[in-house]
């Protein structure tokens, strides 16, 4: 009996779960008023300049860090090479 009640209850719930997904999307309601940008909350007023500066700064920093790393590795290798050339007998 319990199983039958559970089965009926599931059957009753099923259309409720499926139907909302099948309903066509409602068109957005017509805009009733215009909101000036200055009236938007602070979080939604997104200035472009910090994003632009951040992008350009990142490019410069990334390239400078890469060049610095290359330079460091090159200096170390040149030193190692000079040391090895001294140690290896000339053939």
């Amino acid at each position, binding site marked *: 009996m319990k199983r039958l009640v559970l089965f009926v209850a599931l059957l009753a719930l099923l259309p409720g779960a499926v139907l909302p997904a099948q309903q066509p999307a409602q068109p957005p309601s017509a805009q009733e008023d215009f909101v000036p940008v200055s009236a938007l909350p602070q979080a939604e007023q*997104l200035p*472009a300049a910090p994003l632009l500066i951040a992008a350009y700064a990142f490019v410069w920093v990334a390239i400078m860090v890469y060049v610095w790393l290359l330079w460091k590795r090159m200096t170390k290798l040149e030193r190692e090479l000079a040391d090895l050339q001294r140690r290896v007998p000339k053939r």
Partner: protein
Amino acid sequence: MSRAFVPLVLIAMVLFASAPLIVANAPPEQTMGLVQKIFYYHVPSAMLMFVSAFVCGIASAVFLFRRSAAADRVALAAGELVVLFGLIVLVTGPLWARKAWGVWWEWDARLTSSLLLWMIYLAYLLVRRFGGPGSEKLAGAMALFGMANVPFVYVSVNWWRTLHPKTSVVMSLAPGMRATFWFCVAAFAVLYVLLLTLRKRLEDRQAMVDELYLALEE
């Protein structure tokens, strides 16, 4: 060091120092305004990411089929530059998208395929670094796979519906924007050649050091 290296450094420095001024003078875009100027560094970086993936792929093919150690060193240098320029693309893109689309990231075809391309080359570098002896062959195959992905990343904006601007944007730029854009492309291209030369030279030195260590052991 080759004779072309010092003039190349000077040209790159002049181009890069003047690029922000030229970009500042470019006309602002009608709807996006100031944030559109990220485009002048973002797109040349993306172009060089693609070029570098091709350099890495072709050099890897030469290494795999002709056993050329010099080609393998070019491939490694170019692979590292794919990751560098890819990182610039993946950071500057979301900074633009936050203002233009209202979101930092969208899992659309162009953004996702660009991220995957970058991850393939990151994996390439990790295999080269930690794969042990013989890993350069596996890495070479990965570079070929990465190169094969580039055309799909490029046309993804035309084939699928994406938020990302289409490839036609570059060819339809207004005159003031066009000159600035190609100036930035030239600046990045010179920088790319410079970095590739420097990185390849580092690998040449590393090969000499390895050879000398072997000679010492004998």
